[in-house]
């Protein structure tokens, strides 16, 4: 193989064809609230950890739906389970249970 000093650049595009619906259904069965997020961002706005380390439940849900579960887990790694997000969620999502469910389902490889 020849080294030209440059090569193919990986695509950063979301590929929804890679979405694992089986695993997602597993999560939705455990915590159906994952389906009703409107991506309003209230949870992230009040997140204790998010001001210091990248932490966002809104983004984690988005990442799961966009076939990037590893990124979702990273987004929740520093969560302190303080529960502030559950207070502000307009749709009353059980955020603590959702966070724990995401970690459970997607940590299993």
């Amino acid at each position: 193989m020849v080294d030209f000093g440059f090569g193919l650049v990986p695509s950063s595009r979301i590929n929804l064809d890679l979405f694992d619906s089986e695993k997602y259904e597993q999560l939705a069965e455990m915590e159906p609230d994952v389906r009703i997020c409107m991506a309003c961002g209230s949870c992230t706005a009040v997140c204790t950890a998010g001001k210091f380390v990248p932490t966002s439940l809104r983004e984690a849900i988005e990442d799961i739906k966009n076939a990037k579960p590893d990124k979702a887990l990273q987004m929740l790694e520093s969560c302190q389970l303080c529960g502030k997000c559950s207070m502000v969620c307009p749709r009353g999502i059980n955020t603590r249970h959702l966070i724990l469910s995401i970690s459970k389902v997607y940590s299993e490889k």
Partner: protein
Amino acid sequence: MKNNILIIGGGPAGLEASAQLQRMGYNVILIERSAKLGGHLAQWDRLFPDRVPADEVLGGLLRATEGVKCFTDTDIRAINRLDKSYNVRLTNGITVLSDAVLVASGFDLFNAVRKEEYGYGIYNQVMTNADLEAYFKTGEDKRIENPRKIGFVHCVGSRDEKSGCRSCSKVCCATAVKQAIEMKQAFPQAEVFCFYMDLRLFGRHYEDLYLEAQKEYGVRFIRGRVAEVSENYDGTLLVKAEDTVASKPLKITLDLLVLMAGMRPSASVKELGEHLGMMVEEDGYFAVRSGIAAGQRSPQPGIFLAGAATGPKTLPETLADARAAAMEIDRYLTEIFPDAKNYKQLVKERW
């Protein structure tokens, strides 16, 4: 003496106004360009938010108009303003002397072919909201054969200046959510995606419909306008959009794409406007007299407007508009029209 009232357009607005005015004792003449009464409602299967059959609603409207003189396949040939009334020659040879005219000319669906990048009429698996309603009615469409992945594109020909339409069509968001649920009911194994810019679910029960689509049917809502569609080797569609919440471009392979064609002013507006000497606004819809309280009065004394002739409306809004127009017409024909001596002065003061 019974006043003659000409109603132009046999859709929901025209039908509802006819029924109301007839009940008030007026002599109503309803004309419709096409062969059938009912307008777009006659093409639709079920209606948001409660998914009631369109046939039932239309049936009720039609029953209430019994006794109204209806001329289908009929247009206006010429119209002359006399002192107070209008002398209208119809294309069926009949001439009507009408004391008031109600324009209920409705809307046309945006021609989705014009959004070239979506490939409607070019790619086999692209259809419109109207095509899908026709499928729900007949159960037949060669594009629909157990689709596993279905996309809905909101705002096709709405909020799109390049397509000549800056405004929102009001009904497409709720229709898309309704149709997404219906497709999920028909094909429970399918994954359904809605591509939207803003979800405008403003009406009563609309938000419930949205929540139901997410919660009960797992419909995925992606904030981003579909920008390009292509056909893959196997006939499936490659769809590109940005997930603007994630700030990343996105691609997905779909078996079926449904375009939510929006409302455009009826093609008849231009001709009607010329016949009636009525102003059309920049958006292509008729202008009401002036201001927020003008209601259903046109700038011309004795000519009224109802329904989508003055911009996109939902069905309940259209029906309410038609009833209001009937009230306005009644007020005009009782308070202004009969006073031959002071007619001009009254028009000046009260029109």
